[in-house]
């Protein structure tokens, strides 16, 4: 599987280029069950979530601003990071082949997965080959995206998350709500309850102090670290030049998983490759400062293949496509692949701050999730695909663009996706409405009649003067916002009335009176 074969290896192949496929519909976690407005509607009712998220996003934001502001070359680092990622995408075939060659030279085995289903099968087979039926996990977005834990469980293999927040989420049979702090929607009392119920042998006198909760997780997991033979991780970076992989973390659970088991399986999206080892000097500055707002995260592990006498003696790297090549084929959307998963855009987003991560329905929430998810999995997988609502989950305020360490122009990508959505959506209510409006506006008589008819809307409006529910096909609009009632009288009919004429005369007279003491703009 890892040996270069066939004509593709030297870059010459025949035939027309085909548009690569998205992540297959109905697999993994790149699509929610409900559209964003519907899911957000319920999430907004969760006061705990909103309070926790408000605190988390504001606090990380302030830390990020402090540590990025202290670097005089922050903008130069962003420029370099952005260019390195763009250059990487341009040279992806050669870089992937180089990475494969280097990892193989150093005693690792490289596997390729067309989609999440195939990646899950590869990991399952590799775990089975070790004879083990349990594995440890390092927090990884890629394995969440493909639903690896659920797949392994269906195959009789228990996967235990070792990041504290991921452990909390897993024990509660819950879903992560933030890339960086996945259990931010839970408070300490809930976490205590979860631990008491699900950690075997936990001290019943455990209180809700975060330090003691963390210590309980330490005790529980330490024994697992010492006895489990296989670990599965993701990777923040894979260096083509040297075959070196990098995992950036805080707790040390990553170091444990990358060091103590006999077999390590790393699942990495193909976009995570970096050309040179030297490039780490840029990303080791951009990532921690953008992510946790620290000058550096507590632990980073770099490893290259297998090192005799140190760490796992068997290493497998699974390179995952799962829609990434489909994103790459999109001239504008490919920029979303530059994402280094720092979560800075989540923390500055006014929409994310209020709805939280669950409303997006995908492993990737927030502004970057709203562009990356449709790029990987598409927006037209089925009628009323929930992903088609994601590009609209934004006010286009642009804060995400300013915060992005690799300068992904997220607002422009959102607009482009909206464009693609309306282009592909066939006959929608919106198109029909626009067509009707054009017909009416072209004929003055009809326009006046329509305005009078709209005045009737006041009858339907409540005492607050708003329409909270419009009839189809306008209910899509009114589901997520109130519509002000139409005015009693249109401007045109007011202007033509005696009252309008009198008001205009009065305004003209007042304007003449004020001319003398008006500010002298030219002086």
């Amino acid at each position, binding site marked *: 599987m890892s040996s270069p074969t066939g004509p593709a290896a030297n870059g010459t192949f025949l035939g027309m280029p085909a548009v690569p496929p998205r992540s297959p519909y109905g697999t993994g976690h790149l699509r929610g069950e409900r559209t964003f407005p519907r899911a957000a509607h319920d999430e907004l009712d969760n006061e705990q979530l909103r309070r926790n998220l408000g605190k988390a996003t504001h606090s990380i934001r302030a830390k990020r601003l402090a540590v990025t502001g202290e670097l005089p070359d922050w903008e130069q680092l962003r420029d370099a990071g952005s260019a390195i990622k763009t250059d990487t995408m341009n040279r992806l075939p050669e870089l992937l082949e180089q990475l494969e060659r280097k990892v193989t030279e150093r005693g690792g085995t490289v596997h390729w997965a067309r989609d999440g289903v195939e990646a899950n099968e590869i990991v399952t087979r590799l775990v089975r080959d070790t004879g083990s039926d349990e594995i440890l996990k390092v927090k990884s977005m890629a394995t969440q995206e493909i639903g690896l834990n659920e797949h392994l469980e269906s195959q009789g293999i228990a996967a235990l998350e070792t990041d504290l*927040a991921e452990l909390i989420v897993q024990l509660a049979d819950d879903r992560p709500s933030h890339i960086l702090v996945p259990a931010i929607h839970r408070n300490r009392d809930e976490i205590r309850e979860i631990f008491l119920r699900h950690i075997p042998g936990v001290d019943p006198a455990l209180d809700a102090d975060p330090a003691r909760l963390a210590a309980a997780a330490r005790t529980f997991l330490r024994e697992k670290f010492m006895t489990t033979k296989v670990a599965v991780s993701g990777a923040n970076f894979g260096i083509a030049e040297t075959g070196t992989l990098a995992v950036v973390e805080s707790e040390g659970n990553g170091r444990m998983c990358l060091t103590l088991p006999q077999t390590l399986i790393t699942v990495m999206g193909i976009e995570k490759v970096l050309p040179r080892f030297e490039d780490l000097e840029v990303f080791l500055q951009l990532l921690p400062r953008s992510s946790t707002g620290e000058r550096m995260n507590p*632990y980073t592990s770099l490893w290259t293949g297998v090192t005799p006498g140190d760490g796992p003696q068997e290493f497998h790297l699974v390179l995952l496509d799962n829609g990434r090549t489909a994103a790459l084929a999109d001239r504008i959307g490919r920029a979303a692949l530059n994402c280094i998963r720092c979560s800075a855009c989540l923390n500055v987003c006014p929409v994310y701050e209020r709805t939280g991560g669950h409303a997006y329905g995908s492993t990737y929430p927030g502004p970057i999730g709203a562009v990356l998810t449709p790029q990987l999995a598409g927006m037209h997988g089925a009628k009323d695909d929930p992903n088609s609502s994601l590009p609209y989950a934004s006010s286009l305020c642009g804060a995400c663009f300013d915060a992005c360490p690799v300068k992904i122009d997220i607002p422009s990508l959102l607009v482009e996706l909206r464009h693609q959505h309306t282009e592909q959506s066939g006959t929608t209510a919106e198109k029909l409405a626009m067509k009707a409006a054009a017909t009416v506006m072209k004929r003055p008589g009809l326009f006046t009649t329509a305005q009078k008819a709209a005045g009737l809307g006041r009858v339907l409006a409540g005492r607050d003067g708003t329409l909270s529910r419009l009839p189809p096909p306008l209910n899509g609009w009114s589901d997520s916002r109130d519509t002000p009632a139409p005015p009693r009288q249109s401007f045109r009919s007011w202007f033509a009335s005696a009252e309008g004429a009198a008001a205009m005369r009065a305004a003209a007279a007042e304007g003449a009176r004020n001319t003398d003491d008006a500010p002298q703009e030219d002086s």
Partner: protein
Amino acid sequence: MTATARDTVLRRVRDALTLSDGPEVTVPRAYRTGRTLPDEERLALFVDRLVDYRAQVRTCTAGTTAAVLAEVLRAHGARRTGVPPGLDPAWLAGYDGETVTDSADVPAPRLDALDGVVTASAVSCAETGTIFLDGAAADQGRRALTLVPDLHVCVVDLSSVRTGVPEAVAQLTPEHPITLISGPSATSDIELERVEGVHGPRTLVVVIRTDA
């Protein structure tokens, strides 16, 4: 023969690039590199960052290394201390506890019985307070040694402390297993409250040798 996944993925990447060729870029590396600072400033910056992460910091000279290490280990009640096979034995000459020399065939669970570990370091970065351990260096040892015990006493020669990240990364040997350490293990996963020490050593003591 049907196409392998490898062929398919690489073909898709090439197809994608044919369909949407990205802008040609040359990477602008206008960020700061090759920075140097005088010894006192580098030391002050490094110590400031270490303390900020709540690492404990001691300074010493080559001549007082053994005395300071003995004092640190005693202060933390370390009776059994692990060392990598290549650590200078003179460093623990003043230590009255048991010294356990590590080797690759010692099972990791046995490391749990150590009270602490003393190692050297490869290079450090002052601006971020980061220590780089080279797992292939005999005085730093395999990665498990500095991970399992609850106390890590790390000796840093001031001459190995670089100013910024690019200057430190340039000193590394990429193929070696490398661990970057910036303070003790930490988490903010519960209500964003920082807790030191989840899985790695809960105490990190950095002993900086100012004349080495």
